[in-house]
């Protein structure tokens, strides 16, 4: 008899538990607050007085959003949220001495890892997709409602926000798998997280081959509008979405496999002895 139905139910069980623990309780406030920051910026952008001559049209607003998305939403907020959520899925449970409740269930450790990851990925993706979409719409519509509406609905249409949402989901997938593994491997995930943050921020300086050893390169490749990374940037051809998406999926699956393997042999020792 196939084990899939059992695994599916167990993954659903881990997902439900993780979701209620991490995204419905008080501890979820930090994630929602981080995701609300770009929306708050967009509101400020809408209400602060900007001189008529520098305001530009919706296309300029969309270009400004592209910079905000690249520098602030993905590289900073999504990155930090993924550190917070995914590195704690396992490491946080070890620190709180509650991981044994999962380990005592008659479920494969791989199934537990997948359930935890899916809870983190779906939740962060939904929260940051909403935040990204709302921020985009607010920025494009804020100062030019009629032109902005046309820009949003006719040309280029909703394809742009859809690509940003896809890019956010891809970022959560890639960073999520990476930080879940880091949480499994390192007692203190902060040091590797800071090193990775530096790597992601310096990505624009790296040669084309090394750029591909980062999540941000593939996320940028999905962004509908190019951004100017400055005079020092090494320009590389963006990777096609048809390669970027499956590529990040495959690498994330590999990272999850490593985390699951590590978890399979993991030991928990509690008590005074």
């Amino acid at each position: 008899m196939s084990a899939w139905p059992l695994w599916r139910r167990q993954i659903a069980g881990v997902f439900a538990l993780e979701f209620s623990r991490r995204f419905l309780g008080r501890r979820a406030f930090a994630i929602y607050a981080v995701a609300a920051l770009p929306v708050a910026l967009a509101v400020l952008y809408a209400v602060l007085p900007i001189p008529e001559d520098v305001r530009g049209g919706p296309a300029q607003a969309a270009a400004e959003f592209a910079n905000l998305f690249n520098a602030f939403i993905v590289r900073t907020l999504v990155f930090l949220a993924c550190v917070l959520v995914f590195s704690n899925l396992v490491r946080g449970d070890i620190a709180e001495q509650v991981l044994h409740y999962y380990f005592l269930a008659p479920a494969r450790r791989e199934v537990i890892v997948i359930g935890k990851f899916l809870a983190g990925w779906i939740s962060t993706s939904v929260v940051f997709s909403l935040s990204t979409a709302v921020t985009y719409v607010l920025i494009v519509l804020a100062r030019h409602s009629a032109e902005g509406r046309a820009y949003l609905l006719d040309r280029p249409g909703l394809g742009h926000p859809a690509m940003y949402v896809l890019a956010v989901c891809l970022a959560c997938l890639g960073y999520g798998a990476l930080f879940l593994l880091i949480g499994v491997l390192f007692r203190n995930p902060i040091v590797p997280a800071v090193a990775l943050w530096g790597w992601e921020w310096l990505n624009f300086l790296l040669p084309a081959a090394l750029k591909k050893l980062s999540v941000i390169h593939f996320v940028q490749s999905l962004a509908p509008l190019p951004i100017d990374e400055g005079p020092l940037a090494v320009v590389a051809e963006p990777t096609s979405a048809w390669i970027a998406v499956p590529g990040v999926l495959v690498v994330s699956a590999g990272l999850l496999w490593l985390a699951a393997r590590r978890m399979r042999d993991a030991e928990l020792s509690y008590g005074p002895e």
Partner: protein
Amino acid sequence: MSGPAGERLVTFDGVSKFYGEVLGVNRVQLALGPGITSLVGPNGSGKSTLMNLMTGLLNPTRGTIRVFGHAPADPERFLRDIGYCTQVDRFPAGLTGRQFVAGFLRVHGLDAAEANRLADAAIERVGMNEAAGRRVAGYSKGMRQRIKLAHAIAHDPAVLVLDEPLNGLDPMARAEVIGLFREFAAAGRHVIISSHILHEVDLISDRVVILNHGYVVAEGDIRGVRSEIQAHPMQILIRCDRAVDLGGRLLHEPDVVDVRVHDDRLGLLISTRDADRFYSSFNRIVLDMDVRIETVTPADADVHAVYQYLIGNEGEER
């Protein structure tokens, strides 16, 4: 794995566990059958290590562990039969008692309705109905202990492993929980308990495993363990009408090494190297002398005495 009578066993075959160079347990060879088995030993003797090994939370450095023939590497079968109430007094934040029990039942692969039904049954069994809707963070120590117990029994395991399960419980709750363990054992299940409270261990155990410094120093039913301790003669308490006469006669028996007459001259404390032989000659002597016997009871065939003889006062709590 089954024993000679088709008994389902929890087995340790040459199991050792080292934490780096520190010994957890060494060369453990055990086959635990149904009933209540108590693990007894001072702090650091290896009780929790043994429990963590038999529930798959630790991997043995050497040797193999099987629960009903299943290895820890096959958690879907191995853990299906095990419920473990650890000493760790920590819970996932933000959950109510019912969410805690039902939530982890869903990780077993149960649907929400079945998980809720089993959780409610287990919560009722440990007497936590009224508090089940409250957050665990607001529970008293005794309530937390009971909700952990509900988590351990909720999936109706055949092997219940309990690390200091009576900690934090008031006398009434202790009696209820001990009743629950007996009920489990009477249904042919395995109840494996570690406890410092020797008189309670003595009351409830069918057998004991005595550990010291990571080694199993004795195991079996308590009288059997006691009879194997040759260094300390068995003590037998006799209440009778002619204690002085009987004592004088018994001193001539080859297995009797000491006789002490009680101050009221109505009792004796006999020390003997072979209790079985003593009892058979004792019956004959009593008939010959026509002594009226009130009681004859072993004075040191309990967990406390055995613990004293094998381990001494280390880590003892009565």
